[in-house]
């Protein structure tokens, strides 16, 4: 071969149009062999659209892709895999009831021999520092281990380009470190990595090159090691990000929300039970619950909101009133408000207008919304307008369907809808998950302001930066058990990481070390 082409993959002037939206507009991206290339941008900037086109899941409207210098058409993901492109999605596609080896076998082309495959899985996964037990059932594995399956599945096909969509969102800091070592090794071996992330520090740490998208266009191509997190963020947002003012000096008052030895059995084979959780949240205080996804966060949220009833009323006290056996609307009447993790389908009905979605959570607390059983459209429209104005919810028409809003805008609406009530207690799960930096800052500021006015706030989050930004005290949830809440000033990412892993995994790790 005479002279390797300089670039492994080139996307040249690629555009993708959905209806009237130009999701990608004249995007050019060049990835060299052996480089870790970051793809940065706010939500809705067009990162996913671009990588889906590279992976063959979408077709560009115009422009072309080149692979090793030659034009190539990628009609579907199978063709992408044939070229040597692997992708690890943010949401895993694994069968929980099957073993690791069976899951991987399902993705392999052609016939396979499960025993030989298992042996290969052990070898490759150990080689790359991502140890996996091929016969383990996926349901028993942590999220970090599940991600390993997805990565190993790609590695077995010997990819030349690995696309990773926000891989560290679900990992503990220690797990993330291990992943970075693996990626560095892959890069040394000549495999290129296209790395999508929101976390600028980590991009600075591991990436050689960064392409930044804004509103579907490439706005910069920089060497992230020469940039600061702030300068990268400026490029992404196109301006300075509003800094959240925490003003920790506000007064801490009485206990408003109290969990007293809360127990909840798992409600299915893949659900986590809650074990003996005790916590007090005081007026004026924000407590954050950190933890890796799938450790009981959603079960805890359901128990707090009343979507699942507790065994005893006094396991949960709202301003001193036993509420464990009360329904969600009774708890709302007592001054509590809830924002779930999933915006569409849980916090809001996708096909309903925003004003109807106001009625969804406020029909029992707001007399202007329902009069003798009849829904008052005008009252709902008024609330929806008020929320949209004060939280800067951007929308194409006055009262659009919830699903037509972008993630950040809908999240602002869903949080604003509750804050508009001035609740005495706010429980929010993942307040800024998948939300762009601008909207995140607005939401966090609003949460802090609520606490400063004397409400008790409980935030469940997987985002450590967010937790340190807003929390007064931090507790960690692991396998359904909650650690004690420590003042934020006494916590570090490492300490949280150890608590996240929990005693169970520490033991396992030691075990593996001896073996």
């Amino acid at each position, binding site marked *: 071969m005479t002279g390797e082409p300089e670039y492994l993959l080139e996307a040249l002037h690629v555009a993708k149009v959905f209806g009237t939206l130009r999701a990608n507009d004249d995007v050019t991206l060049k990835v060299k062999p052996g480089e870790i290339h970051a793809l940065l941008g706010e939500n809705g900037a067009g990162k996913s659209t671009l990588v889906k086109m590279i992976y063959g899941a979408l077709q560009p409207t115009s422009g072309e892709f080149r692979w090793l210098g030659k034009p190539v*058409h990628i009609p579907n993901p199978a063709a992408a895999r*044939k070229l040597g492109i692997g992708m690890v999605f943010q949401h895993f596609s694994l069968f929980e009831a099957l073993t690791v080896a069976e899951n991987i076998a399902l993705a392999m082309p052609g016939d396979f021999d499960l025993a030989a495959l298992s042996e290969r899985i052990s070898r490759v996964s150990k080689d790359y520092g991502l140890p996996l037990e091929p016969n383990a059932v996926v349901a028993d594995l942590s999220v970090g281990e599940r991600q390993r399956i997805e990565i190993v599945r790609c590695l077995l096909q010997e990819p030349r380009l690995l696309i990773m969509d926000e891989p560290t969102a679900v990992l503990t800091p220690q797990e993330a470190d291990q992943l970075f070592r693996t990626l560095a090794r892959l890069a040394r071996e000549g495999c290129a990595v296209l790395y999508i992330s929101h976390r600028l520090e980590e991009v600075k740490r591991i990436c050689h090159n960064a392409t930044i998208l804004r509103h579907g266009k490439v706005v910069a191509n920089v060497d992230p090691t020469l940039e600061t997190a702030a300068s990268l963020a400026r490029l992404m947002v196109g301006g300075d990000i509003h800094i959240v003012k925490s003003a920790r000096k506000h007064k801490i008052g009485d206990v408003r929300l109290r969990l007293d030895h809360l127990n909840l059995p798992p409600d299915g084979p893949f659900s986590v039970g809650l074990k003996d959780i005790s916590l007090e949240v005081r007026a004026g205080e924000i407590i954050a619950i950190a933890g890796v996804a799938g450790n009981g966060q959603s079960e805890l949220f359901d128990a707090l*909101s009343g979507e699942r009833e507790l065994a005893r009323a006094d396991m949960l006290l709202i301003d001193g009133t036993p509420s464990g056996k009360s329904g*969600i609307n009774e708890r709302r009447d007592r001054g509590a408000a809830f924002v779930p993790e999933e915006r569409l389908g849980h916090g809001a009905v996708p096909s309903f207008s925003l004003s109807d979605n106001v009625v969804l959570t406020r029909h029992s607390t707001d007399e202007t919304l329902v009069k003798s059983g009849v*829904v008052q459209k005008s009252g709902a429209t008024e609330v929806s307008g008020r929320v949209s104005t004060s939280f800067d919810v951007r929308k194409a028409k006055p009262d659009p*369907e919830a699903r037509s809003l972008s993630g950040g805008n809908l999240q602002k609406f869903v949080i604003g809808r509750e804050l508009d009530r001035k609740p005495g207690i706010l429980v929010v799960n993942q307040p800024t998950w998948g939300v762009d930096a601008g909207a995140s800052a607005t939401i966090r500021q609003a949460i802090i302001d609520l606490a400063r006015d004397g409400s008790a706030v409980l935030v469940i989050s997987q985002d450590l930066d967010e937790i340190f930004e807003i929390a007064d005290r931090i507790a960690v949830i692991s396998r359904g058990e909650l650690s004690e809440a420590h003042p934020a000033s006494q916590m570090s990412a490492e300490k949280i990481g150890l608590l996240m892993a929990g005693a169970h995994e520490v033991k396992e790790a030691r075990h593996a070390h001896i073996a």
Partner: protein
Amino acid sequence: MRILLEKRSEASTLMAISSPFIALGLTVILGGLIFALRGFNPLEALYVYFIEPLTTVWSIEQLIVKATPLVLIGAGLSVCYLANVWNIGAEGQLTVGAIAGSAIPILFPAWQSPLTLMAMMLCGVLGGMAYGAIPGYLKNRFNANEILTSLMLVYVAQLFLDWLVRGPWRDPQGFNFPKSITFEGWQLLPTISGAIHLGCLFALIAVIVLAFVMGKTLKGFEIRVAGNAPRAGRFSGFSRTRMVMFCFLLSGGLAGLAGITEIASTVGQLQPQISPGYGFAAIIVAFLGRLNPIGVLFAGLLLALSYIGGEAVQISLGISDKIARVFQGILLFSILACDTLILYRIRFLPRHAAAAQPAE
């Protein structure tokens, strides 16, 4: 060329309204094709089927009478389906309603007063509700699939009716025909004009009440949430089990009312066959009417036309009136297919080269 279904960002209101009309158009075209394949002049056959019944006062009255049970049941079913509760057994609830309502004149044949009629109607409604409550209970208690249980209960009800009219409730003076005594006086619904009877008014009232409930009240809101996003329904504090039961009681009650209305008007006595499948045709009515009570009113009239048209082509052209079922099937199929276009649009793309061309 490649045909692609592309998701719309919002549901298309235009398509939601026009989809039934496109479906109707498709049905007419496919129906004409079927007539042509059978060797009839398609235009003439379609005229006899769809237009001729609308040209005489008598047949228009028949149309309204036939639409009555379809609208009553369809209105109840549309509420169920909006809430994602799949009651397929309205035919059974209709049958039990007819039986329960007929119990009054059969057991107390001498009782003649306006109260008789009211008692019959009340029993019809209660019978339908009770029979609807069975799949509702099974769903809530054992998570049993309501599509299967409600459907299977149809056959139980029909066989029970068959046994009643051949056995204990057979008219002693009926020459051994499997029929009950013939109802008369206050055991029958008074007529308003021609063949149109009081039951037609029930259907109209049911439509108006349900349109208000669905459009304006918190209960209607709850029903729409339950169907669109069950998780959000729980978050809103609405109970799923109560919703399931409510839907079965409502649709069962209306089907029961339709059953006793039929008996106390056109049929006039209890017999093994009391409905030409109104409970099943009402499923089509519900969807054709956009699961909207007002829409159900018009869809009920259209489905009634399909029955009358079926009889018309049997008389004029000698085609089996089972053709009505064929038309109903094509109509349901078309409407469900066209409904895809509410959330998706069709795009035609020029064909690309089939496979990847990896550069070597």
